[in-house]
């Protein structure tokens, strides 16, 4: 199941193959100086060299067509997987139990326990987008944004407060899509303000100051009774958030588990779409749009400067880039997308609380899934958060899950087997049920130690091996 999404980056494109050098340096091998040279200064040269026949326009055209086709094939596979996922779950969990003589086999219950339920898939989308935005700044420029939750929170609070008419100038009833953009814009501006003083610092100090700003905002929001009657709990939203084209009812879909639109017998095909499914697809579309936007930026000349900054900021500056403004712009954009993620989170939940949006642990979640998925790969965080939410689902008893599954399928004698006063059932209840954070922490530490490039980064390293091997030879050529 995880194979098809992870294969995608292989065909991602060829600019990123060069990014692999960066991933390697992050894992300990010092990046050679000439790497950046090729990235910044001789980028075009390298591309020409890599194309077999640099002279022919046709050849180059074919080259890019091939690239794009592969690119899109990979994207289609991933998008297709996520689009068909709800159907897949419905089919697999619907498999009836089979009596095979001595025991009953219940694959339906098994899949129910192990496949993430739709609510978790929706959470995966917010978290995935938020983590992508975190990776956008942290993974591509190398500046760890430890206060990223602030932007997520701004997105969330702006849409909720706007819906309640609590934001001056913005009239009550302004469509969700517009308030979402407003929140993203506010986050963009706040990021510029924070960045203006923070980008004079690097490394640990940058991480600390962004964390400091975010904590200040968190404490302000948590204690400010204007945002909600009980600011510790946060505000709730009146009305439903609608994703779609503003002011066009037929193209707007309300999201939310309860408040969302549901459709029966769609197009007479006998398919019912629940509110959860509507939300999944509507939010999924926005995430997809944001993903492509970020992907375009990263693969543009601007994105290449971001990577150059990560690899060697001094050199990027020496080559003539105004790195300060590149960092500012990248930070602002990443805040913009973080706020969109936060806005959809709040829109779907119909509320926002300081601890679920502005708190440091929210940034930490993004950090974890980014590492697991692969830092410095844009799609990686999405797969990381798929992994994260799967684990959450398996280990929680909310919607299927391992604990109830074990409780139901294991024989009673085994469950009540008593060792030193502790039954197996106790063990399940204590170390399985709702213990996702523990296992996530363990998985995270194992990734940091043994898979520092994450799921996607490692797959890319393996498949891109040939490119990586040819890279030193290329660099050697430019040195002379």
């Amino acid at each position, binding site marked *: 199941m995880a194979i098809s999404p992870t294969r995608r980056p292989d065909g991602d494109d060829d600019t990123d193959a060069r990014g692999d050098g960066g991933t390697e340096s992050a894992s300990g091998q010092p*990046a*050679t100086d000439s790497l950046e040279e090729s990235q910044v200064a001789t980028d075009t040269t390298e591309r020409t060299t890599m194309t077999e026949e640099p002279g022919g326009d046709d050849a180059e055209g074919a080259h890019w067509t091939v690239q794009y086709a592969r690119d899109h094939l990979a994207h289609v596979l991933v998008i297709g997987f996520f689009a068909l996922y709800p159907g897949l779950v419905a089919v697999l969990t619907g498999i009836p139990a089979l009596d095979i003589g001595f025991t009953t086999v219940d694959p339906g219950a098994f899949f129910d326990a192990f496949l993430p339920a739709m609510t978790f898939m929706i959470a995966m989308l917010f978290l995935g987008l938020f983590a992508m935005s975190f990776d956008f700044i942290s993974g591509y420029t190398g500046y760890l944004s430890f206060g990223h939750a602030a932007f997520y929170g701004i997105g969330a609070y702006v849409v909720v407060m706007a819906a309640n008419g609590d934001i001056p100038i913005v009239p009550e009833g302004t469509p969700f899509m517009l308030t979402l953009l407003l929140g993203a814009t506010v986050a963009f501006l706040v990021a510029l303000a924070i960045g203006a003083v923070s980008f004079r610092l690097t490394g640990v100090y940058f991480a600390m100051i962004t964390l400091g700003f975010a904590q200040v905002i968190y404490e302000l929001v948590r204690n400010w009774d204007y945002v909600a009657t009980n600011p510790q709990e946060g505000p709730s939203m009146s009305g439903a958030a609608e994703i779609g084209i503003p002011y066009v009812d037929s193209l707007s879909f309300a999201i939310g588990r309860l408040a969302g639109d549901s459709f029966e017998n769609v197009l007479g095909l006998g398919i019912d779409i629940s509110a959860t499914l509507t939300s999944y697809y509507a939010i999924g579309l926005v995430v997809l749009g944001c993903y492509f936007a970020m992907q375009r930026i990263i693969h543009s000349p601007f994105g290449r400067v971001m990577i150059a900054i990560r690899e060697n900021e001094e050199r990027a500056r020496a080559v003539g880039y105004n790195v300060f403004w590149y960092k500012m712009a990248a930070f602002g954009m990443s805040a913009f997308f973080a706020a969109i993620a936060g806005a959809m989170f709040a829109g779907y939940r119909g509320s926002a609380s300081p601890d679920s949006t502005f708190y440091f642990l929210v940034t930490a979640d993004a950090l974890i899934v980014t590492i697991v998925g692969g830092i410095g790969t844009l799609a990686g965080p999405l797969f990381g958060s798929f992994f994260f939410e799967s684990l959450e689902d398996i280990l929680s008893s909310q919607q299927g899950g391992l604990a109830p599954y074990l409780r139901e399928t294991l024989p009673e004698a085994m469950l009540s087997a008593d060792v030193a006063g502790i039954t197996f059932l106790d063990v399940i209840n204590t170390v399985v049920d709702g213990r996702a954070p523990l296992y996530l922490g363990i998985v995270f530490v194992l990734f940091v130690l043994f898979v520092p490039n994450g799921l996607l980064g490692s797959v890319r390293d393996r498949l891109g091996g040939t490119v990586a091997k040819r890279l030193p030879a290329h*660099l050697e050529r430019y040195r002379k």
Partner: protein
Amino acid sequence: MSLLELEDVHTYYGESHILQGMNLTVEEGEVVALIGRNGVGKTTTLRSILQLTAPRSGSVRFRGEDLTGNPTHEVADRGIGWVPEDRRMFGYLTVEENLRVAIDPDQEVEPLRDEMFDLFPDLARFREKEARNLSGGQQQMLAIARGIVGDNELLLVDEPSEGLAPLIVEQVVEALREVSTETTMVLVEQNFPLAMDLADRFYLIDHGTVVESGPTEGVTADDERIQRYLAA
């Protein structure tokens, strides 16, 4: 048996191949100068000896024992001192403390330290002073003292004259000359006449390998084989 032997040493920084088959020997009591342009691998040779940058292949033998793969602190404990480029004082430690770090825990501190103070009277005067408050020349003296304290047998000296006024350089040279009567020395020095003056033998290095070697006696900068590698 030579005191120090390097045989076909290859050392990398990341992917950059710096030492490309370095061979050299140092006999007990000698002063050997490593000369060559910037970036040809002189400092890396010293770092390879100390295993600070471990060679990928080849061997470094000290008194016949192979050092490759040993941790740096064990290499240093065998009696190899290092006076690095830029001196690298512990700026917030006093002169005494700087020396103390270099003395083995099982050695007697006082006599060893006093020996250094006899050799460098300036340091004795500033023994309680933090090293960052010393002048450049005094810091260089301290670096040399720190390199030999505890009866090191081999001293690796990297660019001792760099960044110092001519008058101070003379003092440093005198100090090194005095040290060299008791200690074997490998000297990396950009200042060619100075290197020839101090050393008994020289190795001329280019592209991470020895291209010329021989006694320093009578060698001048005009020498054609030297010119070819040293001129910019």
